């Protein structure tokens, strides 16, 4: 047998300092994102099956609606208008799945094992949130390729593409933590699946993903104003196809929404471990 590392003395465990806490957080986020990419590498079937829905939206819904000119999108072709919306939708579906994953991890003992590592709850939740962002980003790449094949005029500006990537990660972090929060409230996989299905479609339809805000009835415009998905879509549309967008506002809303949701989800995580 090879020589195993000797156990460290108890006193060697360090005291947390602010700088130490931040580097710890970054290390944990890195570790969890790496694992996410490793999982994707070993099993690409999920990546493929999750491509079907956005592809259908773009190919069937998108091309049909561009032909009948039912939705007024000004000088922007409807397919160009739709592509960022579908990109945000596919990221939403990836992220909402994470609450279910956390409950599965609870049932399988994985969560307990993670909680018995020297990792603060908030770091664990933040790491999950960014892992969701990474996975959503890989998914977004697939949607971008489909959109390009359909002739959508997407930007080639690397700064704008980077901005779009940040938007996808922030949006996914928010929805991932929303889903973990719901998991911490309902505590069972079946109930969460029901709730997940019950909220994702309304979030999507009550957003500007499929149609511009001005054609919505007044009450829907109100809902739209508090729906983070709409800010995600607005920013993506502005960055990728160049429609007018309140980029500063969108980034601010997404950043605050993600931070608040990470905090709430971290507070509820221990409930899952009881």
């Amino acid at each position, binding site marked *: 047998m090879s020589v195993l590392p*000797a156990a*460290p003395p*108890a006193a060697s465990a360090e005291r*947390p300092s602010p700088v130490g806490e931040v580097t710890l957080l970054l290390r944990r986020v890195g570790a969890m994102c790496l694992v996410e990419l490793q999982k994707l590498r070993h099993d690409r079937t999920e990546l493929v099956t999750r491509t079907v829905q956005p592809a259908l939206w773009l190919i069937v819904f998108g091309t049909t609606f561009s032909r009948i000119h039912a939705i007024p999108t000004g000088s922007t072709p409807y397919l160009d208008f739709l592509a960022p919306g579908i990109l945000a939708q596919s990221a939403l579906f990836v992220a909402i799945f994470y609450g279910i994953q956390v409950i599965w991890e609870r049932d399988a003992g*994985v969560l307990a094992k993670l909680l*018995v590592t*020297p990792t603060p709850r908030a770091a664990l939740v933040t790491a999950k949130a960014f892992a969701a962002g990474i996975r959503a980003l890989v998914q977004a790449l697939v949607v971008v390729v489909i959109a390009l094949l359909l002739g959508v005029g997407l930007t080639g500006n690397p700064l704008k593409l980077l901005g779009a990537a940040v938007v996808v990660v922030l949006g996914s972090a928010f929805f991932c933590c929303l889903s973990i929060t719901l998991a911490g409230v309902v505590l069972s996989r079946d109930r969460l699946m029901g709730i997940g299905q019950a909220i994702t479609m309304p979030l999507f339809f009550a957003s500007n993903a499929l149609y511009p805000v001005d054609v919505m009835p007044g009450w829907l415009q109100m809902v739209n104003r508090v729906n983070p998905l709409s800010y995600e879509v607005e920013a993506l549309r502005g960055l990728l196809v160049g429609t007018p967008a309140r980029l500063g506002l969108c980034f601010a809303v997404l950043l605050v929404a993600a931070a608040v949701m990470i905090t709430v989800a971290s507070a509820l995580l221990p409930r899952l471990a009881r």
Partner: protein
Amino acid sequence: MNPVLVKDLHYAFGDHVAVDGVDLALEPGEVFGLLGPNGAGKTTTLRVVTTLLPAPPDTVLVEGLDVVRSRRRVRRLLGYVPQQLSADGSLTGRENVALFARLFDVPRRERAEAVDAVLDAMGLSESADRTASTYSGGMVRRLELAQALVSAPRVLVLDEPTVGLDPVARSGVWDRIHEVRRANGMTVLVTTHAMEEAELHCDRVALMHRGRLRAEGTPAELTAAIGPDATLEDVFRHHTGDTLEAGGMRDVRAARRTARRVG
């Protein structure tokens, strides 16, 4: 200093009392077995020791550190393998272990070597680059041991480590535990409801029944006090009027289900 010290621990889920006044004092380097039927409160006790469930201050200490006040320092000293088979089937063995090396801040320079060493010690070098979904139940358990050991814990906490495994896989798991313990002197706290296993592998045992400890000592002491040919099963019946295997099958089935899900 006791690696694990528990003083009059009580724990209730709502009105349901799961642990009803437990005292434990582990000695450095020993394998201590918490022995009892399903529902005795073993897992609950371990979850308090591993900081997963709250305890009043100064009731539970690990290496002299309070599990409530020094939560994170305690976690750094522990290796924990939960009752369920909990390796990630969609990662390779090596990736499963490397994740825990990172989560325990094993320095980058030493990481690859530490991961290799621990995989080797668990007899998994050959299969380290296959996804864990292709592993047998015994291999998954050894992989989980590797995950728990890569941080070189002072105290290894194992919840029913051999439930659902065949006899060969069982002794495989125990042999590895003893080898590592001899090499680095860690203390092992283990639960089981298989008494022949406890007799064979634990230095000391405590018999737990309905949230309370009914007897404690070396297997030899406990059995000698009952009669010349007594087993731990007889000791348990003598102290509790109950059998150890009560409810045992449910656990085996649950572990098999987990094994199917992981594999």
